[in-house]
């Protein structure tokens, strides 16, 4: 039986239990953490990168600040997407046959956490995308 990264460590013979606690928490806070990271890093890069002269350095027509911001946005989007993917996998995991072995309270709580995480990660991904829009107006100068 293939072992999902979501599962707690078990022997292959035992049916997979509830999703790992770390996966559930990442599903809940991953999107928010990605957004926070994006905003703080983007601001620090924008302010201090421009002040320190990185705005004068050009690579392939774009300033170094713009490249750093694009990289930061890509990283944040990747993190938010990973959180979204984790939410989807938790949902799939709970719809599988092994969910019948979970206690009702645990199943309901995990399902709710999964739903909550999925919606919030999608919204945070959209927020990060919107926050990245200003970068494209400052590609060639600070």
């Amino acid at each position, binding site marked *: 039986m293939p072992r999902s990264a979501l599962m707690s460590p078990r022997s292959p013979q035992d049916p997979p239990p509830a999703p790992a606690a770390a996966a559930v928490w990442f599903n809940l806070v991953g999107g928010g953490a990605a957004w926070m990271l994006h905003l703080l890093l983007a601001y620090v890069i*924008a302010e201090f990168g421009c002040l320190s002269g990185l705005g004068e350095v050009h690579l392939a027509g774009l300033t170094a600040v713009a490249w750093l911001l694009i990289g930061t946005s890509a990283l944040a989007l990747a993190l938010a997407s990973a959180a979204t993917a984790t939410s989807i996998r938790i949902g799939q995991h709970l719809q599988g046959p092994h969910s019948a072995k979970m206690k009702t309270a645990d199943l309901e709580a995990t399902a709710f956490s999964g739903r909550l995480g999925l919606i919030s990660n999608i919204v945070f991904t959209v927020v990060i995308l919107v*926050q990245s829009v200003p970068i494209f107006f400052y590609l060639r100068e600070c």
Partner: protein
Amino acid sequence: MPSPNQLKEFERTWSAPAGWTEMLAAVNSQRLGIRFMVTALAFFAVGGVLALLMRIQLTVSDNTFMGPQTYNELFTMHGSTMMYLFAVPFIEGLALYLLPFMIGSRDVAFPRLTAFSYWTYLSGGLVFYASFLTGSVPDAGWFSYTPLSGPAYSGTGLDFWVMGLALVEVAGLAAAVEIVVTILKMRAPGMSLQRMPVLAWTLLVSGVMMIFAFTVLLVGSALLELDRAAGTRFFDPTRGGNSLLWQHLFWFFGHPEVYIMFLPATGVISTIVATSAQRPLAAYALVVMAVMLTGFVSFGLWMHHMYVTGLPELGLSFFAAASLMIGVASGIQIFAWIATMWGTRPKLTTHFLYVLGFFFIFVLGGFTGVMIAVAPFDWQVHDTFFIVAHFHYVLIGGVVFPLFAGVHYWIPKLGGRMLSEKLGRWGFWLTFAGFNLTFFPMHIMGLLGLPRRVYRYPESLQIDSYNIAATIGAFAMAAGFVVIVINILRSRRKGPPASGNPWHASSLEWSISSPPPVYGFLQPPVVRSRDPLWETETPPGDSAAERASAALAAAPVRWRATLGTDAITGRVVAIHVLAGPALTPFFAAVGLTLAFLGVLLKSYLLTPLGLIFAAACFVRWMYPRPEFAALLRESDVPARAGVPANVTGTQSTVWWGMIGLLTIVATAFGALFYSYFYLRLFSEFWPQGGLPKPELATGLRVYAPLVLSAATVRWTTRSFTRGRRGQMIAAMAATVLLWTVYLGLIAGHLTTQPFTMRDNAYASAFHIISLALATCVLAALTVAIACGVRVLRAKSRDDFYVLLPLQLAGLFGVFVAAMGAVVFAVLYLSPHWL
């Protein structure tokens, strides 16, 4: 069924002591919740009177009713009162009163902490207003920007402001930890997170937000007072400081603050909308997500208060984008409410009228919010009355109207009597019409050029008619508030008796009598759905939960307790013992107030004496009493319930309280480090003033003992749990020695530095960060010694009164050691790298 004698003893255990002691020693959340709300409303009334005085001055152009200094004092005190002394404390009071009933608990997690919070809040408010007696009233605005609030440009009025604020923030932090731990650990059995009322969700998110936001403001105000009283240079640009640093610190608190107020208000709206529609709230998961999203994103908007400070446009644009996006969360909630009410015919009760008023006013405020989120538009209207109009629309519409809705909704539960609907409608319409007449014209006045915070304006602006309308509206609003108060007071004697559930609501607080008994629930309820009072059939329950609930029916009789549950699933895990009445929280608040007054009065002996007195009160408060331990051992309630009464580790509420405290301390250090790096990044040279870079070898020598103590702390706790007494004693001794060595070394290091904290901003930051850490280590050392004495006398490894303090001391010890490593990196490594 409990016998009459058992019931009588149970009631006596939960009752407050008689006489004047009750006033000072009460810890019951119902009583303290009402005190918070009444005190907050009293401050609201005073703040309202200040506003009326301002409106009189502004009624006509070139008015001479008051001078500029008085006007400055009035708008400062009005804003400070409303933001610090009314809104959040009222919400805290509502939470402390309602939350236990709503989640099926008998009280909050730390009853004595609630009492301490109230007395500290009251002291803070009195300190603010004591400034009127001295003739030196704060006059730099509720935000007190530097350098205006610095030592060069302001008098002792600002010291009253800072000290009063600090006390109120400490009270707020205590209440925040209380609310968060109560919601996570003390819900009724079966109340998993997805069955929690939305109001509880909003209070949980607000509580977490308070822990971060209030701490940053506390640090900021401490740095401001250090600049004023001790001559540090954090905000002094002539000595390497930066005035904008204050704005960053302030608004990092200031923006989340409005959502700390707004989110619980939305929780009230969600509750009333669902009840009025007689239908469960639509899109519950979306609403919860929107609440969490708001909580997170609100911390990323603070720079939209600083659009005109000259920050780079690219940086500002990220905050503009985030400011636009937060409207999404509010929009989700609004559409959920509309969906809940769709197709229903809610009765137009007074509380529902306030909900409708909220919709109208808050949505208008939201529109103008989206407008000013756009930086170029904000550049035009910043510091005009357009902004005044905006924030009053969102704050009064978004916070005050929902709170008044809540008051009208829950007063029957509080007092056992219904309010008069006729008076309620008069109160609503006067308030609603008065509000719009006051604040709508301000949009126009702002666009026509009337600036904020000016005590008069010239006739040439031609805005007299708008101002006259605004003043009439303000008095109409005041009349509305008076009618509301009359309605509440009148209902206490003349209101018809309220039934248990007059609104046919679904949540647990309506399952007990009105007014509720002092213990709340005679038997803790078992929850099986999100709307327990609307269940038409009883789903199968959890037998363990039923057993625990039955064991606590009118029990225990000689000590206070409620059930403790898992934070996520709501499974019963423990019986939580609750503290009874005590005078120590009151005296601890007195000690803290004396300490702060010492700074205010420049009586520097009073400060350490006050702190020592407060510390002694805390120790007495928390020190377990042997007779109580015996009582618990003899009780059969835990055995009947099938869960232990004294739990340790992550099942203990006290453990979570310690995590809350450590989060506060970590956030405080985070704010200090932010200040350090902010000052560094705007300085051409670092260290400033030609000072030498700190020597790595010296830093290693001073901090190594502290960092190494992490290992000895872990060694101590492990040795104890494994029963290795000899090793445990050695580990404890090593820890105490390492911390003592560190304290001696840091004292010597700081006193032999070639600079003082007054020299420049770098020197200030270096000293203050070092002293902050040393203070934490001193506290950890004191705790460790007290704990060590108990550990040495322990007869058993399983003694709860030894194991839990040891766990907590261990957490604190590892924390200070880890913080030592971070401080070393910041102060000694970073100057060489950055």
